[in-house]
């Protein structure tokens, strides 16, 4: 039992981490609260399903195609839909909710509401005590760390990474250093949505695909961002695993706990907002005039 809880919390935690980091990135750099973030994750999952079963791609190329397609979709949507309203927070909020629902309905029309699955990349499992660890779970967990490690390298070592961090901290000053703020914001959107696509690609063998699969991760992701501190990537990382663990504990230990999944996240969110509104690693944004 303890081992099951551990595995579930690590897998869920790493999914939330991937999603929340992308969400934080886009918020930090472009000040966009992208409610549709997890909808892109759903689109990536469907994209893999479609390319695998309808087009006969092998699993790896299906994943790559999904990531590229989702990043491209995010870019197009940003250009025609989000950028014109970017500075109007309420409009962005409403717009991205609408976008998420539109994507959900599109998937519902295209693929119906049936539950779909894709096969694991590697089959089989290891038996540890009474618990089963699927090789796919280990693979997923490992890939999350590789992706997050690469992401960190990108942010810390490349010029674009530097511009992204600078813009996230103070976009006016970043502008004065010659960084093209609107181009940096666009790159951040592509990377962030691409990361949602990667999450979908990595997680898809472990989950069922359906048009409403973006709802729960969205709530968890919001709770993670509130707990970790808005705009803090480090905070999102730790908070994801804390929430993943809390969620797994409730699901396994409380009778009918699976129904309380959403409640765990929301309760933690409310408590954090009451006690420490800035979150664990909250960033204080320099006030802009």
């Amino acid at each position, binding site marked *: 039992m303890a081992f099951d809880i551990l595995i579930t919390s690590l897998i869920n935690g790493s999914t939330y981490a991937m999603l929340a980091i992308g969400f934080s990135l886009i918020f930090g750099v472009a000040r966009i609260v992208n409610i549709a973030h997890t909808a892109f994750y759903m689109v990536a999952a469907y994209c893999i399903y479609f390319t695998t079963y309808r087009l006969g791609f092998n699993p790896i190329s299906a994943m790559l195609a999904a990531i590229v397609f989702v990043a491209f979709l995010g870019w197009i949507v940003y250009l025609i839909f989000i950028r014109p309203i970017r*500075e*109007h927070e309420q409009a962005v909020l409403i717009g991205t909710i609408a976008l998420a629902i539109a994507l959900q309905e599109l998937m519902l029309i295209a693929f119906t509401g049936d539950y779909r699955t894709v096969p694991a990349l590697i089959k089989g499992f290891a038996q540890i005590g009474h618990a089963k660890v699927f090789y796919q779970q280990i693979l997923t967990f490992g890939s999350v760390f590789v992706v997050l490690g690469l992401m960190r390298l990108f942010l810390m070592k490349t010029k674009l990474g530097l511009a992204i*961090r600078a813009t996230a901290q103070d976009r*006016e000053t970043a502008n*004065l250093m010659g960084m093209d703020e609107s181009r940096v914001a666009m790159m951040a959107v592509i990377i962030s949505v691409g990361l949602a696509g990667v999450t979908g690609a990595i997680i898809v063998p472990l989950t069922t695909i359906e048009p409403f699969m973006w709802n729960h991760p969205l709530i968890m992701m919001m709770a993670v961002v509130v707990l970790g501190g808005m705009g803090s990537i480090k905070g999102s990382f730790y908070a994801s695993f804390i929430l993943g663990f809390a969620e797994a504990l409730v699901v396994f230990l409380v009778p009918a706990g699976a129904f309380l999944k959403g409640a765990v996240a929301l309760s933690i969110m409310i408590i954090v907002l009451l006690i420490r509104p800035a979150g664990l690693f909250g960033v204080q944004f320099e006030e802009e005039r």
Partner: protein
Amino acid sequence: MLEISNLTVCYDKAMIINDISLRVNEGELVSLVGPNGAGKSTTLRAITGLVTWQKSIHRGSSDDIKLQGTVEFMGKRIERTPAHQIAAMGLIHCPERRRPFREMSVLENLKAGAYLLKSKKEIEDNLRQVYELFPRLKERSHQVSGTLSGGEQQMLAIGRALMSNPKLLCIDEPSTGLAPIMRSEVFRKIKRIKEMGITVLLVEQEVSTVFTMTDRNYVLSSGKIIAEGKGEELLKDEVLRKTYLGL
């Protein structure tokens, strides 16, 4: 080098800058002084494209920003040019309240300042130069900039601006909030920057030190330029001294 003609900036219905003209010649150290709220910072923001930028991001919202008149830098009109392109032309703005990237180390801040430079060697050279000018920054190079003292943050802000090889450096209120010793230190460094051949436009409130080091000065009050000239000339004017400079 820099020529501003009939510049007017309005935020909503408030006229912040009213028809001002000023020029900075190559190699000069020119100051723009005046009391709080005179429009000094807005003038700099208009020159370096931040007003244009603000205008572009507030497009469609209720507060309306107007910018009229012309700004010419090295013979090119720049009043409609985006801020990052102005920076690329070598007109660098070291902003008010220092504004370091607080979560980054001193070194990363300086590298962000060198964002426009392509060659690694040039960045290294500039880094050496900045460290020479501000040895304190070298000692603190791996410290997170948010934890630096006010004076150190000011040095970092100037150092960061120097990293991109500015032709004209605009420094906004570098002495504000600093202890007297730190102030004179910062002013000494600005003098050295001028001696390095960089043209400087300095915005300040504190005039007594500034007037001793500048080539020319403009006095701004309520959005208008009310006097211009060398420091000693301006100080001779009794009314100006008492009313606007607070001396």
